[in-house]
């Protein structure tokens, strides 16, 4: 009778998942940064207004999504087949995610509101 076992964790390199985590953090941080920058600068707010009915949220959200997917692809190509220091990757991804959360919180981004 064949013995079944859970596949070894070492079977797959962690690079592709590290790429996804950092890309997720980058996408989130981009939305947070753009939200704050749009509040601070009328020029940036106008530049992000790609579609009038939606306003600058178009640019903030779509740039964030583009950064997420493009950086994921690029990091995947760099990290595929490799094992990276996952604790460090997690720390970077969570810091980026925190930037996204803080940057989209009105009491924070309103501190930078243009006069």
């Amino acid at each position: 009778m064949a013995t079944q076992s859970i596949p070894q964790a070492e079977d797959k390199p962690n690079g592709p998942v590290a790429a996804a985590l950092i890309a997720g953090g980058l996408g989130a941080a981009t939305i947070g940064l753009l939200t704050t920058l749009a509040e601070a600068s009328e020029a940036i707010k106008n530049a992000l207004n790609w579609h009038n009915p939606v306003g600058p949220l178009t640019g903030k959200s779509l740039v964030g999504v583009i950064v997420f997917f493009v950086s994921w692809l690029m990091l995947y190509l760099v990290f595929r087949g490799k094992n990276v220091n996952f604790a460090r990757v997690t720390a970077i991804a969570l810091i980026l995610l925190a930037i996204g959360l803080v940057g989209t919180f009105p009491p924070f981004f309103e501190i930078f509101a243009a006069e």
Partner: protein
Amino acid sequence: MSISPRESWTVLHGMIFGAAFLVAFAGGLAGLYSLRPQWVTVEGLKERLTRLKVGLWGMALIAWATVFTGTFIVYPWYRAQDPTSARSILLADPSTAEWHKFGMEWKEHVGWLAPIAATVVAFAVTYYGPALAKKVGERRALLVFFIIAFVAAGAAGVLGAFINKVAPVR
């Protein structure tokens, strides 16, 4: 009894897509948390993984559908530059203005973090498969991402429900 197209889209965005994501979270969290070799058999792990992958990809797709319908279909009606739009109604009264200045401003931005984080989790679970059960650090990182997806969606959802109660999109 009737419902306008705008109200229908608002219901689809919040009560169907958004609520489905929030309801599914508990199942996803339980599945991820309990993905430990000492708690499940090999057969159980395979069965659970299939369910978890389908559930997580479903949640990610629903989260994307929620933010896209919310931002590009419902939000333009909310912020229309006429005195009868929900935004204008909220801002016209100092006692309701914060629903826009804090509530909507937070909701419209933070909601976008949910599909990003949910997609990362769905990909990672699919990539590792059963091996994730033995990867403690990776599983913890994914749990944090998953919880943040829920917090972002939850904040957006709760605020959306209250805002639509105070000034409905019609």
